[in-house]
């Protein structure tokens, strides 16, 4: 079972990181919030499951691309809130341009010049 999750993380790795960083660009967010934002912004198309999301969040935190703070929520609960760091911002730019290149390249293949 654990192998299944690990494999998926690997498949999604680059893309998921990009999505998380992009989501946090709009403001600090907790884990559930990140997953909901990705789902909402993709028109319910992309569903990030928890087994991919949390390892990715913790990994990005370890790389110092995102930071985290413990805050108290409206219903008096301690919540871990992630925010984008300066290094993360830079990384986001890099990942974005890379994604656009890939996207252009694939687009070019699918729609050869008329």
């Amino acid at each position: 079972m654990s192998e299944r999750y690990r494999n998926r993380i690997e498949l999604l790795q680059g893309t998921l990181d990009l999505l998380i960083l992009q989501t946090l660009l709009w403001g600090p967010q907790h884990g559930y919030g990140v997953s909901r934002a990705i789902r909402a912004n993709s028109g319910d198309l992309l569903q990030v499951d928890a087994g991919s999301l949390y390892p990715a969040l913790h990994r990005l935190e370890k790389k110092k691309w995102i930071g985290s703070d413990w805050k108290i929520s409206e219903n008096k609960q301690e919540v871990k809130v992630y925010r984008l760091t300066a290094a993360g911002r830079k990384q986001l730019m890099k990942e974005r341009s890379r994604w656009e290149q890939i996207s252009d390249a694939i687009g070019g293949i699918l729609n050869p010049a008329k």
Partner: protein
Amino acid sequence: MKFWWLWRKREKELEKEIQHHLQMAATERKERGATFREAQAGARREFGNVGLVKDVTRDAWGWRWLEDLHDDARFGARMLLKNPGFTVVVILSLALGIGATTAVFSVIYGVLVNPYPYANTDRMVHLTVHETRGNPLFINLNGPQLQQLRQAGSVESVAAMGGWNLTTTEGDLPEDVRAVYLTSNAFIYLGVPTLLGRGLLPSDAPEGQDPENVAVLGYQFWQRHYNGDPGIVGKKIQLVHKSYEIVGVVRPRFTWGDGEVYLPLKLTADPARTYFPMTRLKPGVTRRAANAELQSLLEQFAKQTPSHFPEHFHVTLAGLNDHFVERIGGTLYLLLAAVALLLLIGCGNVSILLLARGTAREHEMAVRSAIGAGRSRILRQLLTEALMLSLAGAAIGVALANGLLKLIVNWLPEFSFPHEAAIGINLPVLLFCVGLALLTGIVFGISPALRSARPDVAQVMQSSTRKMTAGVHSRRTHSVLIAGQIALTLLLLAAAGVAMRAFVSVVKVNLGYDPHNVMPVGIPVHDHTYTTWEARGTYFHQLLKKVSEIPHVVSAGLSTNATPPNNGWELRFEISGKPAEEEQRARINFVSPEYFQALHIPLLQGRIWNEDETMHGAKLALINQTLARQYFPDGDALGSAIRVPELKGEPPLALAVAGSDGWFQVVGIVSDARNDGLRNPIMPAVYAPYTVMMPVWTQILVRTRIPPLGVLHAVREQIHTVDPDQQTDRDVLDLDGRIKHEPEWEQGHLIATLFAGFAILALALAATGLYSVISYAVSRRTGEFGIRMALGASPKDVLLIVFRSAVMSVAGGVLAGVLLTITLNRVLARWIQGSSLDALILAGVVLLLVATAGLSCFIPARRASSVDPTVALRCE
């Protein structure tokens, strides 16, 4: 600990984070109209397996190895407990080697590497010289000479000491106290702070004045005499009717000169009074340069006081520990070599067993690798097991080392190691031991691990059977390991044989005197007492008479310097009318006529001088057989004359009869008795009346009907009646006991016992190794033997097959061992003194080894041959 705490914290945070996620999801579902239960269940379903999510998230922390380690250790422990035989043998093999190595290394560290607590010990030297031939001599200097030595260019500082036996004069019988007189700079020179109070200070012995009456106590003396009274500083101690104020107590390791009390020493200008110099060289000055500089200085001194120096000499400064290194260094390094062999053999065992198990587990490894275990993961698992074994071995090894260390320290020859040495399992030694264990684990754990970590999965899986003979490669490795073990064991056994024979020859040596029921009671004479020749002679005579009167005493003889088996002053002598071609040396002994009777040394020719002649200091001499044979081959010894030119008195210390350096008439020949230790040949000896030379110390040899120590108190009381202040040496040993304290005896005993012990352990280890290999091979071939027997092979045939598989490695090992032993024989002979390897020992050792090997093969072989074929075939 901190790490664990951090781990727990992150664990809790993750839990909180996930709970929050679930709660948010559930809340959202409820807002969309779901019931509480539906919302909870839905959120959970969407989330997935909480445990698994946590697991993969934890992976991102990069701490997974820690969890794996925990799992590996648990699994390893289960595997090891499942094979208790294997585990016990491996752990014991390691523990024995590590324990013995640690113990011996601890002794070496304590005695040879770091024995002294003093400051800058490496620059402290003893002022010693070598004569043209013979042993180093310690040179004592008088006051003015010491002042000159201080000025020498290579010398940083000089302190000096003298020793004297004092007595406490507070109790019933006077108690002997070894006083060490130190110049007032000595405590600064030695640089060790005191335990209580202060050391001696320059103000304790102001220049040109008598020193203050202050005393610093030795630690042992403080413990014994004052029960370690912490309030002792400031109290008084009475020594020979003089009161001293106790100003301090030294630390336990401060045993300079083995002093019991340290008193300030005033250097006098009297040229006859000499002191033992303590010299520290300047930093950067080589021993050689210092030797050269001091040579001319000492030659100048020798002109001033010729009697304090040998005729020809060259200065050879000795480091503080050089003497001990020479005495015991070889022995200790030899022991280290022995235990290193033991360790190697033990490691060989571990390697054999791990290798065998590695092969046996090939199937298991193949299965693991087939279901996705990475190579490094399997390697790590095996390494964890090996490390668990070696750490357990190290732990038990340290415990064993502790016991063995106590044994060795007990058996160390008393004067062959510095008494300052603190021999214990200390930190460097402990680190050495743990390092050794880890290295052993890694080296011998990894070699089978490397092989079984890349099993040829297909091949192993296909060969459906678990029982198959090991590959050629592993069989060859086993053979080499077994052969190596046997070779090393043979070397150790041969060394043990040689050491034991050397010791037996020391024990059975023909002494030439009868030590049984004789005790020597030493009598130190007080300073400034009995200072004339007549007075001291009469005093000694009275002491002897009084002691002879004790009921159980059979006979009592006085001997100033003649306690066998190492007695007499070694001096040059001349024979009247026979000019010497080369230097003639003999042991000169000063004794009373009863000495020979007390020791049962028979008179062979002539007569012994009588009491009257003794009291007049008659110049008569007895010689021993060796001297008679060597210098009077024609049997004309009786009536000849012998002269010892260096025999001169030095009042008020040594009182000699007038003309002591003149001619002595030889009146008799006595039988040879050991006088140069238990191993060396007997030296030529001359016996003269004790009145010829009376130093400030003498002793009475008492032969008794009952065990002599029972009479000691009576002896002390009798001496007390002659002089109420006269003490005797505190530690009295009878002559039987003294033999056991001779360096040859103690060293021989130490080496023989330990070597024998180590050799037996090595033999046991090697036998276990061989047994393990054979029984492992046999268990794997059970099926094959079943088939062979079903096809008509007899049990005898099977027995032979098993034996044949071991013959090559055993024979190879024996051969290699014999060659190794013969090659190393010279080294062995140098370190185990008085030993030589002969065919008998070698043959005996080979026989013992082959018999043991045979037995180790026979047990598993018999098991194989007695197996029922139907059972064997079905056991697949």
